[in-house]
Structure formats: C-alpha cells, structure tokens
C-alpha cells in the first residue's frame, strides 16, 4: 500500500519536473536540430548561446530591468507598507485593496491596458515603458512581503528608542529598517525574479530595442526549437536557483517569505 503510494508520488514529481530534466539532457546534444535521445554529448550548445549576441544583449537588458524594477518596487513597497501598517487614515482599506488588485486581473488583460496607455506616451519598446509595466506587477508582491515583516516588528523596541531621545527618522533608520530588512530583501528578490521571467506583458510592450530574454526566447521558439534554447534554459534555471540559494543562505527563505 505504502509502496504504491510512494510510486504514485514519484510519478507525479517526475511529471512536474519532466520539462526541466528533459531540457537539461537535450542541452548537451551535439545536433543542430531537436531530436531525442541525444546521439553524442558536448557543450556545443552552451558555446553557441554564449556567442549569440542577441541572447547576451537581451540577458543584459533583462538583468538591468530586473534590478531597477526590484529596487523601485521595494522602495515604493516600503513607503506604502509604512503608511498602511503604521497609520490610520481615511481610505486606508480602499488603498490596501487597490494595491493587491492587480492580483485579481489576468496579466494578458493588464498587458493590453498597459500597451494602450504607454503607446500615446511613446513608451512602447522603451526601458521606461517596460520598467513601468513590470513595476505594476511587482509592487503588489513587495507590499505583501514588507507589510508582513513590518507587522512582525515589536513596537516596544521602537518606543524604547524614542523614549531614549531618538528622533523618528533615527528610529526608522536604526531600528525599523534593520528589523524589516529580511522582508525588503525577499520582496526585492521576488520582484527581480518576476521581472526577469515575465513574458506575457513584456511581449505586448517590447519589440526589438528593449526585448527581454523571455521575449527573445519566445520569438526564437516560434521558428526553431534547436538545442541552443535548451542550453539557454539551463543557464536561466541555474541563475534562478543560485538567487534563491543565496537568499536562503543570507536570511533564510522561510523567514523571508
């Protein structure tokens, strides 16, 4: 009974991880076209990816966009969370709902809306345009993680500092900020990864000048499925894993999320 259960679970996990495993295997195939099983093995596809200027440029753009979006999303998220957690004001519930509202809208619908707004401003296929679009889908995440770590902060520590003569700004800088920094880092990492992996909205906003890596891969896949994409996919998977492991080492993932 238990053996059958474990076998079923293993099969389900195999299904869940199948694309990643297969991509990993195919990335070492030496042939120019997609086929299975591989005949001989090499790092040829990897060499080709690293020599592909279009991919390298798109990778660079994705990193820059992800970093800027992550930083701004954390900054905005921190300010919004401070207001929402620490102060009572009229319209707080409305704003709290509005912040999370993008979660409730399919991203393709939001993508059309963003395209319509960015187009007359001349922001289609610009860094400003794609960053603004990514900001919209990442701020809800940063607000959520930062709000949670802000609520976990013991107010008495802040009050103690205040009693001992610290100004509100000093309290914020020396007490509150260090205490919520795991939330800030986690929010920033999540925002970076979302921006870095996002394809749906990006495909509506960018074309040639500011194409990100996922959109570049998508356009490539419309015409060809050769092992180069497999090698590139493995690189991307390793980057995501590295980022997560780094965060885990730095602050502990459980605490962060």
């Amino acid at each position: 009974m238990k053996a059958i259960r474990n076998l079923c679970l293993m099969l389900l996990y195999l299904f869940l991880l199948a694309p990643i495993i297969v991509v990993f295997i195919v990335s070492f195939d030496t042939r120019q076209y997609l086929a299975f099983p591989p005949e001989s093995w090499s790092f040829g596809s990897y060499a080709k990816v690293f020599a592909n200027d279009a991919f390298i440029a798109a990778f660079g753009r994705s990193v820059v966009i992800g970093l800027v979006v992550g930083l701004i999303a954390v900054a905005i998220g921190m300010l919004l969370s401070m207001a929402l957690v620490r102060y009572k004001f009229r319209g707080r519930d409305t704003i709290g709902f509005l912040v999370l509202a993008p979660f409730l809208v399919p991203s393709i619908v939001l993508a059309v809306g963003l395209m319509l707004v960015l187009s007359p401003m001349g922001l289609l296929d610009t860094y400003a345009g794609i960053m603004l679009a990514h900001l919209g889908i990442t701020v809800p995440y940063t607000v959520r993680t930062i709000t949670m770590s802000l609520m976990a902060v013991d107010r008495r520590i802040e009050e103690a500092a205040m009693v001992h003569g610290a100004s509100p700004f000093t309290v914020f800088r020396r007490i509150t900020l260090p205490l919520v920094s795991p939330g800030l880092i986690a929010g920033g990492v999540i925002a970076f990864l979302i921006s870095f992996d996002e394809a749906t909205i990006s495909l509506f906003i960018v074309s040639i000048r500011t194409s990100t890596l996922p959109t570049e891969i998508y356009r490539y896949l419309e015409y060809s499925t050769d092992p180069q994409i497999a090698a590139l996919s493995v690189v991307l998977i390793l980057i995501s894993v590295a980022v997560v492991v780094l965060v885990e080492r730095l602050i502990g993932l459980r605490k962060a999320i």
Partner: protein
Amino acid sequence: MRDRGLVLALLIPGLLAMLATFILPMAWLLRASFSTSTMVQVGFTLDHYRAALVDPFYWKVALNTLTLGLTVAGVAVVLAYPIALFLARTTSRWRGVLTALAVAPLLTSAVVRTYGWMVILGDRGVINGTLQSLSIIETPLRLSNNSFGATVALVEILMPYAILAMLAGFGRLSVQLEEAAAMLGANPLRVFWRIVLPLSLPGVLTGALLVFVLAISSFVTPRLMGGGRVFVLGTEVFSEATVTLNWSLAAALSVMLLVLFSSVIVIYQRALRRLEA
C-alpha cells in the same frame, strides 16, 4: 496634522505607480473597447463587441477557452491533490526538500517550461523519439501543435500553483480526527471519503479556481504548443494587438475575458460559502 503630511508623502509614490500601471490601463482598456478607430481612442461604438458576439469564430474561441480552462483545472487539481495531501501530512525529514521541489518549477519562466514540453511532445521529441527507436511506432504520434499538447503543458506549468493553494487551504485537516474515525471502525477509504475529502475541499476549490483563471488568460503556452492551431481568447487578444493591430477589438476581447473571469470568481465564492456553511 504632521502625521497627515507624512502619510501623504508615504502614499504618493505608490499611488502614482498604481495610477499609471493599473487604474489608467484598466480605464483605457474599457475606453478603447468602445472606440470607433482601431488604434486611437475616439468616438463611441459597440461594433467591436457586436463583431465579437456575432462572429461564430469568436464563439468557438470562447468555447475553446472555457474547455481548455476547465480541463486544465480539473486535471491539475487531480494530479496536485495527492502531492499536496502528502506534503501537508508527512513528518518525513525530506518534507522541506519535497515542498521546494514541488514549487521549484515556478522559478523557471513559463517560456522555458513550454520549451521543455515541446521537447517532450514534439514529432522528434522524447516520447516519439523513444517509441520510434524501439520500433513501436513508425509515424510520430501527434502530441504537439494541437490542443492536447497545450493542455498537457498548461497542466504541468500551473500545477505548482494548485499545490501551493491547496497546502494553504488544508489547515483544517487533522490527524487526530482521522485516527478517531479509524478507531471507531471506519476503513481507510471511508475515512478519506467522509473526513479528509470534505475538510480539504475548500483548498481544492481555491486551487482549481487559481489554475482556471491562469489557464484562460494564458497565451504563450497555447500559442507555442498549439503551433498556431489552438485558438483561445489569450492567443486572439495577442494577435489582434500585435499582428492585426486592431487594438479596439483586442480591448473588447480582453473585457470579455474579464467578464468570464469575474463570473467564475462569483461562482467560486458562492460555492465556498456553501461549503463552509
């Protein structure tokens, strides 16, 4: 009074971002769907909705979308349930690793995982290649470039969401309750049917809803796996917006997608209320 200024200062960047990235886009979307021009928002007409509602093609597209969403949600929930149930109840020291593995696919772009499924289901892919080299089949099975391929890939891509939603919704499961039922003579099947399943149903429902809404609004996977032969609302919105450049029709189709989406949410909330009552 000083507080009020401070709160305002804290809120302004966020409010501006929300205005630019959510409120304005949604308003513009609605506006564009009534526009008499295809790319500029002017005038008022119901033509785009009429065109979409009169054309049998779009009825078929809407039906395809609904079928895809329901199939993907159903299959993903059935496959995710055993994993979620196992992760929620196990005391194994591998629990952390297994949980991480179950949601790890979320860390890879949907484009990358769609490519993985193209490799598995393609004409020279893993399944066809293996079957052919074993001489079991001669011509490749048609597993991709059709709605079957799109369905399989979407099930796998969205399963981690179902697992996460279920894990979060399984809070009411209790081992003591199951032990009590077993002690009172219920066999394992009866314990599952009468105790475990009813208690886990809210989590299952949330998982199904999440997968459904993500499936009906997807377009990257249906487009790449469908090879241009799968027509759902997502793919049509994308081609109207970027190929045909009829932005007003894209907006009207988006609004219709949003209506489909909202009605499902309403049904879900009714169902959840009845479950919890």
